[in-house]
């Protein structure tokens, strides 16, 4: 389980110094600071695309439920877990 917990109304945004590239239906990105790079599967990539502008977890789930057939509770659990992972890996950050 992840160390950070993010509230549903917390704004989150992408870290600035990331370089990303679309590879087929997946996204790979490089963290310039650590030199690490990450690959995202198609679903993760679809979520990532919705994070272009700062957004709250709540809004993010709303958008994803339009696109994917998923129950609200399920969506909230999965997405918050995923977002928390990204925050831990410093791909996303919480913003004011």
């Amino acid at each position, binding site marked *: 389980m992840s160390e950070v917990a993010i509230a549903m109304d917390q704004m989150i945004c992408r870290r600035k110094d990331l*370089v990303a*590239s679309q*590879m087929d239906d*997946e996204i*790979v990105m490089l963290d*310039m600071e650590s030199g690490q*790079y990450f*690959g995202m599967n*198609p679903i993760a990539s679809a979520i990532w695309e919705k994070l272009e502008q700062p957004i709250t977890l709540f809004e993010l789930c709303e958008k994803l439920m339009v696109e994917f057939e998923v129950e609200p509770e399920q969506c909230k659990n999965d997405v918050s877990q995923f977002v928390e992972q990204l925050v831990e890996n410093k791909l996303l950050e919480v913003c004011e």
Partner: protein
Amino acid sequence: MSIYFYKAFNLIIQSDFECPTLEVVEAQKADVVIQKERLNHLKNDHQFHGVPGRLYFHVPTIVTMDVRDGNTILVDVEDTADFPLAQAYITGSALGIILQQRGLLVLHANAIAINDEEAALFVGASGAGKSTTANAFMQAGFEVLTDDVSAIEFDKHGNAWVLPAYPSIKLWQDVAQRDYDLCGLRPIASREKKFYVKADAQFCHDKRKVQAIYGLEVGDEVSQEELHGAAAFDWLHQQIYRLYLVQLLGQQEQCFRQIAKLAKVAELYKIERPLNHCHDKLIKVVMNNSKVGVK
């Protein structure tokens, strides 16, 4: 003291040292200068040291080198060094660093011209049979662009081009013995069981578009799997020639973008085959892929 002129990776090289594996050319204005120099101040430890534009390293009892700005290689060979081995460091490590400094994408791969326009690249762990495969293609009449290091440049249309390196390939003694007369061959280092085979007659002098990259693996039969998406990127990233050089030179971002570009224009395959036979089947698979895949 003699001065030698060579061509490798489309660069004219002026050298204080003889480099027998490189292609000899007439004296002319050089892109890269290899210079004899005392480098005692760099002999402190055995690490690679790098800053953007400069990288130096010391190999105890053999050679010390200071590679600068993509155009200068300062070399200090130890008096007691095995000279062929020192030469191998010059044409291997040092030239690899020069290519990286010049902004090329450098992969640990060999390249075979598969038609008038394109090349296939082969990568694989040590012992997976890269050079043996290159030799099999040569025996079948194909031309080779490079045996060990593939330098790739991109044009403004996003095409990836692999540059001709130099006309020799390295082979293990058993393969070399089977296909060549060992008396005429130079060992890589004095005690090595690996030999340089001259490939002048089957050297491709022109750059070629990268059509496909094959990861060679050993298996019972010939079979292939095409790679896509993040997995393709990850796999290609692992084929970079000495990734720590990219990091030391601070070129990670450029390298990341180049890998992404290359993965878009080249087909990527893992290919399994028995190590020492079925070369004809492998060649057939490679030729078929070059005909169907229009990206």
